[in-house]
């Protein structure tokens, strides 16, 4: 055989290494796509979509499009999916699918239609295009893929490029307009907040955090009030504290240490009961 033709077929045929990578990643991509559609939890779906996008990025790199592969990873897997997860967390992960069918029989019909659509596209591809040989991009990528794409982008496609840049700006402004909330009431100034605080019966100063004036600086050690009582509003309710709305009265057994200061004995019980077990548990590890 003519060596030139042999070299040409070498170029046009996909190599065996590519074949291995394809047959490893293609099932992963299909399974991840199925998992995304079937996942109950939307966050799991987003993670599976990220796996899918990574598979596609590797496919791009295999097909001599390294620039698109990296853009896929940076823009899609990096930026867009982070945006998705951000909105997912804002909206609430538990906002799962309703099982009420608005249109009866929509799901089976959709599955049948999807299968038929896949067959309708894939079978002609297998029968018609599978005989053709790829021309290969080694000639077009001669000076480097990025340089070649840049050349095309800034000569032939410069007008669409400018339009797309305008589109991006419009999309950013549109997102800001959609996300903007009009202020319904007058703006509360710091002076009014101050007046409101002094008019109310609550404390005037900021509340102490956990561990203030106590013997151990841990999240489960309540701060001590000036009279020596533990300020139970300074620690989280998970550690036996009280929420902000409740009055700051010491409640029995809130330290989890078994030592309960009596309400009439603010001086003796609380600090001593605090320091021994809490210091041993959290502060004493050093």
């Amino acid at each position, binding site marked *: 055989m003519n060596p030139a033709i042999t070299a040409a077929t070498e170029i046009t045929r996909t190599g065996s290494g590519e074949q291995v990578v394809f047959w490893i990643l293609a099932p992963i991509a299909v399974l991840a796509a199925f998992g995304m559609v079937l996942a109950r939890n939307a966050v799991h779906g987003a993670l599976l979509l990220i796996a899918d996008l990574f598979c596609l990025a590797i496919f*791009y790199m295999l097909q001599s499009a390294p620039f698109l592969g990296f853009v896929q990873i940076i823009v899609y897997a990096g930026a867009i999916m982070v945006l998705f997860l951000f*909105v997912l967390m804002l909206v609430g992960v538990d906002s799962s699918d309703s099982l009420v069918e608005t249109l009866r029989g929509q799901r089976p019909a959709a599955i049948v239609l999807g299968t038929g659509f896949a067959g309708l596209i894939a079978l002609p591809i297998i029968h018609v295009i599978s005989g053709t040989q790829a021309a290969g991009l080694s000639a077009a990528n001669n000076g480097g893929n990025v340089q070649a794409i840049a050349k095309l982008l800034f000569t032939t496609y410069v007008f669409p490029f400018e339009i797309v840049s305008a589109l991006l700006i419009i999309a950013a402004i549109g997102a800001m307009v959609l996300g903007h*909330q009009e202020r319904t009431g007058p703006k509360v100034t710091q002076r009014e907040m101050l007046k409101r605080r002094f008019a109310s019966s609550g404390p005037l100063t900021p509340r102490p955090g956990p561990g203030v004036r106590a013997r151990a600086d841990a999240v489960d050690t309540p701060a001590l009030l000036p009279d020596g009582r533990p300020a139970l509003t300074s620690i989280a309710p998970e550690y036996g504290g009280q929420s902000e709305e409740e009055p700051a009265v010491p409640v029995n057994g809130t330290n989890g240490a078994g030592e309960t200061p009596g309400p009439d004995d603010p001086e003796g019980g609380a600090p001593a009961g605090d320091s021994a077990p809490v210091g041993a548990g959290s502060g004493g590890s050093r």
Partner: protein
Amino acid sequence: MNPSNYLVLAAILFSIGAVGVLVRRNAIVVFMCVELMLNAANLTLVTFSRIQGTLDGQVIAFFVMVVAAAEVVVGLAIILTIFRTRRSASVDDVNLLKY
């Protein structure tokens, strides 16, 4: 192996995404399925670019990515706005224009 394998894979991914759009009710999941369909189309573009031996397909795939980014930004803003007013991210609950 032949580049048409990529085309078949892209067709399968596109169909899975289309079924997901039709089946799921959560607006964000529907949006992710749309992203999957766009990516399948991108894979087709890149594969045809390789079959043809020119880079135009890759440039168009690049444009598709940019438009997809703009679409995601506006779409997620719309989903958030709807969620703010209706307290729901389900596409079935947005039916004020139906009757």
